[in-house]
């Protein structure tokens, strides 16, 4: 039972989300409609894109808290280029490149200068935000061209160009992490860095790639942000990095690296975003939002932690089971089941991390 939840983390969260939708639908008729789904989807695009990049970084056992500023910075660059008369396509490309460059900078700090990723990205969080403010002189960027806003408009079947772009990004990252050799390296590097190095994986390159991808995706999120609201305020992207990390954790991405998946992040983001819309339908004042998000997150963490502890206990008991009376005396047990005191056996009261 516990094993099932531990192994099928995404399925469990998915089930819980569906159940929550159904319950809310029962209490508030009209909630379960295509238009709600469409609203939730377009509301989740920014967070989804950032969370996807954050996942790649977390898989390699790093963390990126600078994505909110990368989002803001690249959105501003896009806005400035467009308002100076550049075409949409080249502006978008330059914007994405800037995001990649920002990610590269983070990656270099973390690998070559061996600055802990939380510190490095905390620093660049302030740095990128400042560069953005220097570029805008502290003013908002308004009157973005219609061509950009068009990207966010829902077409005939209720899907915008941006939705398609995000779906492509999701599918791309899913395919890469699941099915390519290099994609598996992300997991390997996060799971056990020494082992990955030992197996000939270029761990610096893999970590930098994760940061570059995260930067590029944050820039994409910046484009989505600008297109959706039509202007770029100073605080664009503020706090999205924390939400993205929370969505990852909800979606079963381990902050210890090496495990997590795109479907998990997808469900995590949808779950986070649907809290807003559910509150509206349940006629709960909006100021409960943070409280509920926090409580849900902590509850999931607590359950998750307890399940993992229980599973570890079971594995541990199995490992030492050779000495229980019903397997007979030690003279009949197979030898290689015997515990050995090297570091890989569970130590005394080992902590999960």
């Amino acid at each position, binding site marked *: 039972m516990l094993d099932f939840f531990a192994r099928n983390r995404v399925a469990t969260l998915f089930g819980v989300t569906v159940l929550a939708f159904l319950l809310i639908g029962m209490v508030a008729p009209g909630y379960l409609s295509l238009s709600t789904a469409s609203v939730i989807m377009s509301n989740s695009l920014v967070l989804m894109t950032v969370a996807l990049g954050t996942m790649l970084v977390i898989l390699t056992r790093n963390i990126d808290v600078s994505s909110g500023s990368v989002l803001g910075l690249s959105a501003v660059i896009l806005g400035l280029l467009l308002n100076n008369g550049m075409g949409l396509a080249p502006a978008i490309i330059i914007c994405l490149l800037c995001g990649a460059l920002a990610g590269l900078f983070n990656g270099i700090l973390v690998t070559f200068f061996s600055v802990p990723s939380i*510190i490095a990205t905390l620093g660049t969080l302030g740095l990128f*935000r400042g560069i953005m403010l220097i570029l805008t002189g502290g003013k908002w960027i308004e009157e973005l061209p219609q061509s950009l806003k068009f990207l966010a408009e829902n077409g005939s079947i209720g899907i915008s160009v941006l939705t398609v772009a995000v779906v492509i990004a999701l599918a791309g990252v899913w395919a890469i992490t699941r099915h390519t050799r290099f994609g598996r390296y992300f997991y390997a590097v996060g799971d056990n860095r020494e082992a990955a190095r030992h197996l000939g994986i270029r761990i610096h390159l893999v970590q930098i790639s994760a940061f570059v991808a995260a930067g590029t995706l944050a820039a994409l999120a910046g484009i989505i942000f600008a297109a959706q609201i039509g202007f770029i305020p100073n605080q664009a992207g503020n706090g999205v990095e924390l939400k993205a990390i929370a969505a990852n954790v909800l979606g079963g991405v381990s902050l210890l690296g090496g495990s997590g998946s795109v479907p998990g992040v997808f469900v995590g983001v949808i779950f986070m975003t649907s809290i807003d819309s559910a509150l509206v339908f349940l006629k709960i004042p909006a100021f409960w939002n943070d409280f509920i998000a*926090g409580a849900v997150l902590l509850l999931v963490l607590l359950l998750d932690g307890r399940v993992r502890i229980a599973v570890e206990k079971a594995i541990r008991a199995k490992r030492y089971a050779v000495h229980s009376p019903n397997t007979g005396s030690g003279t009949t047990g197979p030898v290689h089941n015997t515990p050995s005191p090297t570091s890989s056996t569970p130590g005394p009261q080992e902590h999960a*991390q």
Partner: protein
Amino acid sequence: MKRFFLRWEMALFGMLVAEFAIFGALNPNFLNLSNLLYSTSDFAQIGIIALPLTIVIIAGGIDVSFASTIGLCAIIFGIANFFGLPLALCIAAALGAGAIAGLFNATIIHLSRIQPLVVTLGSLYLFSGAATVLSGVVGAGGYEGIGNFPDSFTSFAYIDVAGLPAPFLVLLAEAIILFVILHFSRFGRSVFLCGLSEHAARYSGLPIRTIQTITYMMTGIFAAVAGLVLSAYFGSARVDLGTATLLPAITAAVLGGASIYGGQGSIIGTFLATLVIGYLQQGLQMSGVPSQISSALSGALLVVAVALRHGSALLTNFVAARIMATNRKRAAS
């Protein structure tokens, strides 16, 4: 190790002196003593929270929820005051709420054994949510805040003793107390040992859980202190009082020498780093640099300082190896 930190603290002091020299040259008013003293009121809260945060980090943890705890405790103070409780009781309620917030964090961390960063990220939302909900109770809309404090409270932020403004005095007193506790007491030593090696600490029979719980509770209590100081300074308690301290406080702790891996850090370092960060922002503002840009520079400062610290360690090892190699070649030939 000790010598290294002395050196690092000297480096921070040097940075501070350099700041004074540069900003003083740009704008002589900057070095005006009363200006130097009174501008501390704008950043004292960063230090008030960064100091206990340093202790949490040394013990091998981290706490980001303090940014919401500050607002939550301020709101609780405001509500207690709203219902006409005596001032002392209101303050006690705020401090108590801070302690409980810390205890809550520590308990969840120990029960779930999930990294403190994630857990306190969750409580960052929970506490700010709780503060918003609570401020709804007394009819103060989300971010308007609760005011109408007694004069004796609001004037506290503006009194001074021997020329030192009250918020700075609070910070100074706190720094002295925590300095003694962290660097001279048995508890302080346990904090370092837990952070240096949790394994060895467990095998030595140190009560790791208790020690870490106390560090989180200290952070909660001092977050409440920061909330009170800010409420008095602004004359109202708001949910988002602490939001702006999140990054500067962590920056101060790390710039001050606290290692995110635990086991290293110092109160003097964090105190000096607070001054470096605070005066950097003040100085930039006085030199006519827009306040937003100063955030870029403090971010850059953090990155450069930490990269230098790590880089110089790498460089030292490299140079030592080179010297040995050349010596050997010389000896061989």
